[in-house]
């Protein structure tokens, strides 16, 4: 019985060693490093490596989304505002569209510009976006267009955090309090 308890404690200890005990949800074990070949808001071809050196927060969305996407990005902007200036300088937010047909570089640039300098819009080939979402095992789906041709895209609602080397570390859900997101982002920036 003691042996069983020891094994349990040892495995708990090991699990604790795998990554920091985040208040949000740990992703290091379940997600690969950030990897993509897309197009930035200035129309330049970009790779994930181009964003190394800073902590990167990734949100998948689309600009035709009037409610959830702007509110999530606004909440994220509010989260960043609670950080010290030097911490905030070490963070970038990538808004990666899952609707590149409507979201040109110009459109995502104007959209993300409303939330702050840390926010960058990313678009690209649909196949490259699919390659990224498939690797990260996140999903999105298009609904049937209405008679005006407008369509809704259902998409993952989490914000994914990667460290300065692009390793997946944690994800922030809607249900996580802002104070938890602030604490984890702070820790991720200051650990390195």
């Amino acid at each position: 019985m003691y042996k069983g308890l020891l094994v349990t404690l040892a495995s708990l200890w090991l699990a604790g060693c795998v990554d920091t005990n985040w208040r949000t949800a740990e992703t290091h074990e379940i997600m690969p490093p950030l990897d993509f070949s897309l197009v930035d808001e200035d129309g330049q071809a970009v790779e994930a490596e181009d964003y190394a050196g800073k902590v990167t927060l990734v949100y998948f969305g689309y600009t035709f989304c009037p409610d959830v996407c702007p509110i999530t990005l606004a909440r994220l902007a509010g989260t960043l505002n609670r950080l010290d200036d030097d911490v905030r300088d070490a963070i970038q937010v990538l808004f990666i569209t899952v609707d590149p047909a409507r979201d040109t570089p110009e459109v995502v640039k104007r959209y993300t510009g409303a939330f702050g300098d840390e926010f960058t819009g990313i678009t690209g080939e649909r196949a490259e976006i699919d390659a990224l979402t498939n690797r990260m095992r996140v999903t999105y789906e298009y609904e049937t267009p209405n008679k005006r041709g407008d369509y809704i895209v259902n998409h993952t609602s989490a914000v994914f955090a990667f460290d300065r080397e692009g390793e997946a570390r944690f994800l922030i859900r809607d249900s996580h309090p802002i104070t938890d997101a602030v604490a984890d982002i702070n820790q991720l920036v200051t650990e390195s």
Partner: protein
Amino acid sequence: MVSNLLNTFRRLAGGMLVMLLTAGYAYGQDVQVTDARVSLLPGEQPGAGYFQLYNAGDEAVVLVGAESDAFESVELHVSSNQDGMAHMQAVEQVEIAPGERFAFAPKGHHLMLIGREKALKVGDEVDVQLEFADDQRLSVTFDVVSPVSL
């Protein structure tokens, strides 16, 4: 006799006028909308309308739609989160029971305002007609705000 008839007519007409006024007025009194805001970003992207609706009347009211001269189309929508996926869908109608409040709020029910007819910026006001069952309408002035302020 003639004067009696005239008096009756006056009373009747006066009564009808009062009834007409009361009908319109009572509806405006019964359905109270507060905190009406349109969240907009620069560009052509659709906006979201948020407000609080209070049914102060004795009967249920049913919101069935909305329209605005400032937008090509206004739809009732609801956002939801299912297994980590953000969903949005159109809503046919929203019923508010007597004495109940209903919030059109971020990440829940909202108006989706599509196709700006004119340029709008934060600080502007937009009139939106809320359409209820039985052809009742209520004109509401929404403040244009940035989502960052919500």
